[in-house]
């Protein structure tokens, strides 16, 4: 799996959800965050599969927390992950440049 492959849509969503949940990013919280923001139901197995894949790509790292007595596998976005997100957004911005959807009536 090459490192400079562009992020998939779901991968991007997972990365962003990790950042949004901040210090409280574990499988279920990431899943809930995606559901709440996108309004789309997401299966927990799919989330973990993607988290594992992102970790294998070194875009995410995981560690064990031991806070309130419950040890959890927590996730954080690595620097490479942040770079990938930024690149993905920059690429999208470049693609959007000069596009006016109003002409197509797409926004209504």
């Amino acid at each position: 799996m090459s490192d400079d492959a562009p992020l998939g849509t779901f991968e991007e969503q997972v990365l962003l959800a990790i950042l949004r949940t901040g210090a409280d990013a574990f499988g279920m919280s990431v899943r809930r965050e995606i559901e709440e923001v996108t309004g789309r139901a997401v299966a927990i197995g799919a989330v973990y599969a993607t988290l594992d894949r992102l970790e294998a790509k070194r875009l995410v790292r995981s560690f064990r927390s031991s806070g309130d007595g419950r040890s959890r596998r927590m996730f954080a976005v690595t620097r490479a992950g942040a770079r990938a997100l930024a690149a993905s957004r920059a690429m999208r911005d470049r693609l959007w440049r000069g596009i006016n959807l109003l002409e197509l009536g797409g926004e209504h």
Partner: protein
Amino acid sequence: MHGTALPRLARALLRSMLHGAERDEVLGDMAEEYAERRGRRGALRARLWLWHQVLGSVPGVIGRSWFGGRTGFESEANSMKRGGLGLESWIMDARFALRGLRSRPQYVLLSVLTLALGIGGTTAVFAIARAVLLEPLPYRDSGELVHFWNAFDWSEAELAYLGDDWGGFDRVAAYTSEGVFMRPEGSAAQLIPGLRSTAALFEVLGARPALGRGFQAGDDAVGAEPTAVLSHGLWQELGGRRDIIGHTMQLDGTPRRVIGVMPAGFWFPDPSVRVWLSTPVRPDNGAGNYALVGRLQPGRAAGGMAEPLRRITSRLAEQFTYTPQFDKTKHAQLTPLGDYLLGPVRPALLATLAGMGVILLMACANVATLMLAQLRGRESELAVRVALGAGRRRLTQQLLVESALLGLLAGVIGAGAAAAGFTVLLAALPLGEMAVAAHADWTLFLTALVLAFAAALLIALAPVFSLWRGDLREALSRARSGGIGARGGRLEDLLVVGEVALAVLLAAGAAVLIRSVENLRAIDPGVRTRGVGVLDIAFSGDVPQEVRQQQMLEMIASLRSVPGVAAASAVQRLPLATRGDNWGIQIMEQPDLEPTTTALRVVGRDYFDVMGIRVLRGRGFEATDQAGSELVIVIDEELATKYFPGDDPVGQHIASGTGLGWMRIVGVVRGVRHSALAEPGGPGRYVLYDQYNYTPESAALVLRVQPDMSVPAVLHAAAASIQRSMAAVAVQDATTMDQVLALAMGPTRRIMQLMTILGALALTLGAVGVYGVVSHFVSRRRRDWVIRMALGMRPGSVIGQVVGRGALLVGAGCALGLAAAAAATRVLASLLFEVSAADPVALLGAAGALIATGCLAALLPAYRASRANAAAVLRDV
């Protein structure tokens, strides 16, 4: 977390899809959210959400574990060690096993094909055996049904005399098989297999018609309206109209009212019978050839009927006198109906099923030895993996997955083979009419898969055992020292000894059957079968006797003009195939002869010529023997020796109690086997259709076909010519005397053919097994030998050691197999002819065949070992 537990199934599925590290935490989180959703949105919505989570997780997990490619160096946080592994590890093992198998295509091909063969064969025979033997008989409480002794020898007079007085029985019915002449509108006359029975038949069997009614009391009274019950198949063929009930059909030349249609799946006494006719029971009819079937009173068993049977026989003895040969008052006994109907096919089916099972077991043993050898080859790899932390459970799992994959593959191919081979086997097994009961259906695939997984488990047993017993750390140290393990391989030895024993078992079974068939072949049937064709014909019942005789003679004459026919004749009962028609005999020159009966055959003039029956004395029938001329009769040698010992019978006179008077004996011919090859024919005599005052309603036309013509083609032309010219004659069953002879050998010949194929297969599998184990033995010892050969050991003694090793294994297997065979071939007893089940020639022959093939199989690796290049071997390790 402890508020509401997750439903069990969903929880188990989720558990299997998560790894150990996060399993508990995620399940806890899921339970929490599930409880919360239940409280907020209700149980149904929560459940829907939960199942969406479960099912939605499947693709991710499969994708991750199948394509994800794990390195084994993942971060501590998602370590897969804790809490064991779920579904994912199995998927990974399957991937690993597939990769491994792909790199060993020969091993896979050999294993899968042998397994598929065993699985396919066993599945197909099992499907047939299940349909024929395990399906319940289509009768209510068939355990209460019994068949009477002296089957097809009960007369209407006896039935009428005994009346309804069947103490100990609920009811008893009498039946007799009969070809029924039928001519549906607009088509040629047919002869359909049917049954005549007394009125109680359907009540005894406890079978209800699907339409109309069965026979009821009074239907068998003299003068009652003739009635018929149709089989479902015949009803369909006649148009399948419900209003057929009450209609009158012309059956056997008699108008009969159709009163009922039996449901599909009903049969009695075999699935070929298509119509059941009521028959009047006339007290003055001393013939009838009936068989009796009865239902025991509730609570009685077939074994506890001695007292009621004694009453019946003593009543019979009061009224009737019997010849000692057919004395009904002796040896009265009841056979459970199931045994009577299925008894003849059971041993053949069970023997074939066992044979296929043995092949499957041998295939399993073969694959297991292959797998063991693979495992030994990977010993150092496995040892390294164990040292790095792989558990034996995980390695076991991998072995299981590998054998399951092989099994699955073999199961799929085997199911295909079973479906394809089903009809072939059905035709090859001597099932007679019962073959109709067997159909291939989807359960075939189920059986194949179940067998495949059972086989897979069996195969994995030996490697897993060796994995758990062996000390892998020791293997690691050995690997470093060059891998010389003189010991070991004991499990393989055991497997191959078992395999050889199984092969001996099968080969012995085949051998006793071959000996039986040899004995059967050695019997002279008294007729020459080559080039003789047979057409079965029947007259419609309403054709008067004089017309029948006239038409019979015309038919024989017209057949001579069919192109390709060298000679034509007819007989009312074909040799080697039919029983009955034993008639009383009186001899003018011996007035005080005790009343006895012998076979009487009504024949056409050239009968002896067509059938190749030699005339030993005097003459056969000649053109001068005509309707108006002197009445003549020909007897066979058995009648001559029995009734005219030391006397010349030619010129003496015989009468047959038919009112025709004395007939002069003009010749003596060879005796023939009347009913079956293995049964002595008994005395017989021949009269001419031209002169005899009775032409039976059915006959077999026999044709000698010119040597350069095809028998079936000539038969076809002859049948067509009869159908054209004789409207009141049904032509059925064109066959050849060669086929009749083959059939007369009984089921033995066909079972022998099947078992011979299976025996050859077993020999091959056994040889492959011996070869594999000996090769492996050689590869373990090779290093040893090259050193010793370098020091002066002769190559010949290496060959001796290796072959000796093979011979030891084969010998041990043979001893075991012979002991098993001596006991097991007894199931074949009813199929054997003049051979003991423990026939020493057959048993030793089988063992000899295995020792020969086994030693040959050992010779190849031995030769290779003796030619090994020392430098290459020593460098290699």
